[in-house]
Structures are given as C-alpha cells and as structure tokens.
C-alpha cells in the first residue's frame, strides 16, 4: 500500500511567512510537497471557521503561520491571531477536534529554512496520525464517506 500522503493546508500572512516560504524557494531548500499555501494579508484576518471548513473539506492537517510577536506588519494582527488561537484551541479540545492536527507557528521573512522544517515536521506528524476521518464524526456527518485519492 502506498504511504499515506496527508493533505495540509497552510494559512499564512503575506508579509512574513509567505515571504519566508518565498525565501525557502529562492534558497532552493526542498520540503514535502503535501502543503498548499493560502495567502492572507495578516494572520489577524484568519477567521478560524476557515480551519473547520478545511477539515470539513478533507484536510488532514493545518498550518497557521505569521510574523513573530512584535514583528507584525500591521502592528498587532498576529497577537489577535494568537489570542484567537488560544480560545479556538480550547474550543477544539471541548468539541473533540484533534488540535495536534493544527500547527500554529511564527515564520519570519528571513526564516526560509524554518518554513521547510515546519512543513516537514507537520507532514511527518500528520502522516503518523493518519487520515482525519474522525472529523466527520465530530461534525456529525452521518453517512458521507471520506475518500482519499
């Protein structure tokens, strides 16, 4: 059986992590191709319902990453994101969503290598966890089967 290839969605800010991932590219640092980046202006823009939507649509893991504290292009967006993440995490714990599937991180525009390392680490850990089929149970979808292609 072929190895399970997790689907990872990355929600990143335009100024730090998106640029950091650009630097990974310009530095030609290789990493797992399972990740798909969605660009936001700021982590503060990320409505965490989008994370649930991603799981709902079949994502196995999620990375949320923005500027380091105090480095936000918009001064405080990343603090809002962090605060919201703390609330969201306990909500996930309460509802039974596995928070190990969400990686929250800071990657600056200068940390190309860190971005590659985070993606690889996330892919490894999600691969161990396996496909996230439980989400459908948590979200009480009675019948629909999740298929992986």
């Amino acid at each position: 059986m072929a190895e399970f290839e997790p689907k990872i969605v990355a929600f990143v800010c335009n100024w730090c992590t998106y640029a950091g991932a650009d630097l990974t590219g310009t530095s030609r640092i290789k990493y797992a191709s399972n990740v798909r980046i969605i660009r936001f202006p700021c982590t503060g823009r990320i409505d965490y319902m989008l994370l649930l939507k991603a799981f709902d649509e079949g994502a196995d893991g999620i990375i949320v990453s923005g500027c380091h504290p105090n480095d936000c292009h918009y001064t405080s967006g990343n603090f809002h994101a962090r605060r919201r993440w703390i609330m969201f995490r306990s909500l996930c714990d309460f509802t039974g969503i596995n928070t190990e599937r969400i990686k929250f991180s800071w990657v600056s525009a200068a940390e190309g290598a860190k971005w590659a390392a985070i993606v690889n680490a996330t892919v490894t850990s999600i691969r161990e966890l396996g496909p996230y089929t439980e989400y459908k149970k948590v979200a009480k979808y009675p019948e629909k089967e999740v298929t992986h292609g």
Partner: protein
Amino acid sequence: MSKIGVFVCHCGENISATVDCAKVAETAGNYDGVAFSVDYKYMCSDPGQNLIKSAIKEKGLTGVVVASCSPRMHEPTFRKACAEAGLNPFMCEMANLREHCSWVHEKGEATTEKAIDLVRILVEKVKYNHSLNEIKVPVTKTALVIGGGIAGIQASLDIANTGHKVILIEKDPSIGGHMSQLSETFPTLDCSQCILTPRMVEVAQHPNITLYTYAELESLEGFIGNFKAKIRRKSKSIDEKLCTGCGQCTTKCPVKKIPSEFNEGLGKRTAIYVPFPQAVPNKPVIDRINCTYYIKGKCKVCEIVCPTKAIRFDQEDQIMEVEVGAIVIATGFTVKQPDFFPEYGYGKYPDVITGLQFERLASASGPTLGEIRRPSDDKVPEKIVFLACAGSRDPAKGIPYCSKICCMYIAKHAMLYQHKVHGGKSYVFYMDIRAGGKQYEEFVRRAIEDDGVNYVRGRVSRIYEKNGKLIVNGVDTLLNAMPVEIEADMVVLATAGIANEGAEELAQKLHISYDPYKFFAEAHPKLKPVETNTAGIFLAGACQAPRDIPESVAMASGAAVKVAGLFSQDELTREPIIAVVNRQAPPVYSSCVGCFLCVSACPYQAIEKEEIKNRNGELIKLIAKVNPGLCQGCGTCVAFCRTKSIDIQGYTHEQMYTEVMALLNEY
C-alpha cells in the same frame, strides 16, 4: 459567466524543470469558467505580456491567473499588463509555482499536481474578484523631522532646500546632537564644531524650517501624506520672543554645581543654562529639577537680573498639533553606561572614563579647554589605555553587534593624546581593527606608525587601583596569550553604542518596528535602508544602527530625497485592499449591528461610527464605517466581526472560503 485566462510560465527552466507546465495549462483549460489557457517560456517578457494582453482583448477575459513566480515579485507587472489591455488590474491573480512549488520540490507527479492545485484555487478565487479602483489621497507637503543631531539637521536642510516646509523637533535645549560634543572628527581631524555649527545656524535661519527645541513627539495619528502629530513643547520657563540670549541669568544663577550633560558630567552648569556656547537657539532654559525656586519656592535671581523680563516661572508645557505628510526619524543613539562593567571600575575610579568624556577633555570648548587632564587631580596622564569593544561584540552582555565607530574614534583619541601630550604613552586593547571606510585604514596606520600608539590585540579582564595608578590587566593574543599589565594614569572605555532610552515607546507611537536591540528597523536591509515598514516614515542616522558621521549624513540625504519624491505628487495612489462595511437597501441598511468590536480590533483607528438617519433626520441605527485613508488592509476586523458585515477587498469571505473549498475538492 466568468471568462478566465490561465497563463502558465516556464520561467525559462525554473518552473518547467520540475513541473509539467503543459499539463498544468491543459488541466486548467478544462475548468469551469476558463476560456483560455496557455503555457509560455517567459510570461514576464514582452511577448509573454503581449500574450496576456491580446487574450484579454480577443477572448474578452474577465479574470486572469498568471501561474509563475511569487506575486511579491511580479504582481505589479502583470496587473499593469492587464490594465493596459483594459481589464481591471485587481482581476489578476498570481499562482506561485516557482518559489512555492518548482524550486522546493523534486520533479514528479506530486509537484505537477501541487502546481495544478495552486492554479485551481486562484481560478476559483478570481471568479469572486471585483473590479477595484486605486485610492487617491492628498499629500500635506510638510515634513516632520524628529531629532536635531547631524542626521536631523542634514535631512531638514535637504528637504527645506527642495522648497518644502520642515518642522524640526529636538528634545534637548539645543540642536547639534552628539556631533556637537566631539572634539575632532576622523579621518581628517577637522574640528567637529567648526563644520557643524554653520549648519546649525543655517537650520535656525532657513525660511522653510520651523525649529522647536525642548520638544518631543506626544502622539501620532494618520497615514502617509496625512499625519497628525502632537508635539509637546516642554516649558523652557522663558519667553523666547523677549529673551535676547544676553547671558545675565546664567552668570548670576546661584546653583552652579550641576553636572553638565553636554560635558558628560566632567564640567558644571547652572540651573538656568545654555548647554554650550554655540547652542542653537542660544537661549537658556530652566532645569526645574535643580532650580532653587522650584525646590524651595524662592530665589528668582534670574528674573531680577533679566533686562528684558523674559523669565516665566509659571510657563506650562504646550501641546501643539501639526499636520505633516512625511516623517524622518533621526533620534540617534546613546552609549552604554559602563557601570555595566564592574571589572573596569567605571564610576568607582574617576580616571576611568568613556570615549565621549574623552571627547570633551580633548575639545577646545571642553572643561579643560582641550588639555588632556585626568578628572581626579587635573594631572596630565603620562600613560593612557584605551579599551575597544567595551560591551560591543559581547553576546554575554547582550550586545553581539559591532558598534562600528569605536575603532576609528579610539585611533583618533590616541592620536590626539599623542599630539597633545608629548612623550606620553598610549595603549589600545582591541579585538580586531575594523577600519572599513574611505581613508579609515590609513588613519589607523597613521596612529600606529606615525604617532607611535601601541596597539595590543587582546582583552582586558580587570582594572584596579594601586598606589595612585590604574593597573590594567590584559592579555596579548598575538604573543601567545601573554598576560600584559600596564600601570596607567587614565583609562578610556569605548562603550557600545546602543539605542536611545525610550526608543521602544517612540517606535510604538510611530507604529514602526525595531530590532532586538531597539534600533528602528528599516523596510529592507539592503534595498530600503531609509524606509520603515510604515509608509511615509523614514530613518536617518544612528537610530537605525550605529553609524558614523558620513553615513548618517548620507542616510539623511537619502531620506530627504524620499520625502521630496513623495512631496512631488499632489495625490498619492494606494492599493484598494481595504476593509468595507456592507450596505444594503432600507430598512436594513447594513447587516452591521453596531457592536463595534472592530473598533477595538483595528490597529489604525480606521473604523468610525456612522449614523444612519431616515428622511426626517431621525437616527435609525449606528453602524461601523471604515476610513479608507487610514485602513491598511490587515483584515483583523474581518475575523472579529460577529455578523460578517465587514469584509476586506481582495481577501473577502467568498474568496477565502472558495480557495479552501477549491483546494480540497479536487485534491
């Protein structure tokens, strides 16, 4: 129905080496709403752009997805191409196939598959893009320069000479900064005051410059072209219009033993004082902490002797509001207080002094009128030791960086000492000699070879006093780490240059970022050294990192050009990536319920309350409204909004949810 064009770029072989570009284009061509799909070797080249333009015209495209490099690289290029073909530039999106795919993954099906996904999410997103128009904002053609050292002076003069108004504020009673304290300057040994004071006078007399000394920035609102700054003009306790600067008050003031800040504590000043004879403006201020009247409620000698009755004991701080279009920060640096180094005994031994104190001793206008005399007993030191890197390049002390100016000023100090004290012996302990700069290396060689300064490569572990001498225990690492002991009469510490106290608060007031050492951060270390991340705010001089005079001046002129460039336009155009609150037909008007969580979330105070009134002028509801001039487009409010009434153009709910769904549905 959308008609979307997909343009897949090979980027030479940068993308096509690992991604099957033809397959990407072919797959994308089959998506709903895609009217045209093609791959091409260089999409950013002229023929590549023409391909896009002709497709827009011929196929009547309503949206464009260019799958090539990072949008941070070529988004402006392709948006411009779309605009030239008559398509709204904001109907163009880019899929990042190079930095995020081809360069970071191996050749193979998975990589091509990822490229296809990246294209698909943007095809789906662009279906929900709206035509947007650039925002135009007016420009107030007055600049605010904060800090009146050499960088601030140069920036002010350069801006003023382009014909624009400048407001220069300085926290001390006089402009001049650290440069006015220096004796001679490297590498030419010309007198600092002689080259600086004419500039100071020029600032004071320039018709385009308004100078406020003893003033600090209180707060800042607004955005590029339209800042509103509140300036606190600290009370000088004199009426500047009446004061002629005759100096009667300073000679008669009975409080005479206050350590002079200008002389780095080596000289004394009075409570009503002018910091130094060449001060601009040359009018005194009362130091209220030390003035007898403010302590005991009586004295008023200055008021009695003042021939123009200019003393105002009851004067209060004034808060002044000014409108400016650009800001240059030139607040400079400070030196690390060496009590940081108990092993060197600064503060304990009066003859262990800092480099800046040595400048005052060597200065003709200093407390010893330029003679090198030690502070303890006024004797001329026969042996003097200079310690480079006192604090700098020492991660254990929290300053891993090089302070940059010390190698040069130590060579200068040693040289000045040798010139002034014939037969004296000088030693320099150094880690490396960093003399990169025009004529800098030659200058250091002159100190060593012509003036006979003894350079010892090594560190000093301890300084202690014995029989009236300062014993300097060091090591010579060029002689196999041989211990060196020198009986010195005086020791000068080249203390690290650090960010000003309060730099952090100032950065927060200005909404700019700073590095771990509290120096203000430039927008790009190489290509935008004078810009900050906040549009319209620029940096000059040592507030960004330790800088010498030529660099500070060059940086100031650079910042001035940026300001002049900004002021050359009557209107600025800004990207319309901003938040908007939805509006609907009556009787709903808007789904906004007026909770104003967004107001507390917004880092730019860009959200206001708007009253909705009916025909009779009666208030129906209160909703949020975004000021398009202030909004920077972070979208924090969007995630906050409980009713999803506020959305950010270019990253709307529709667009972001579509991206997530498009990504996973055909994964």
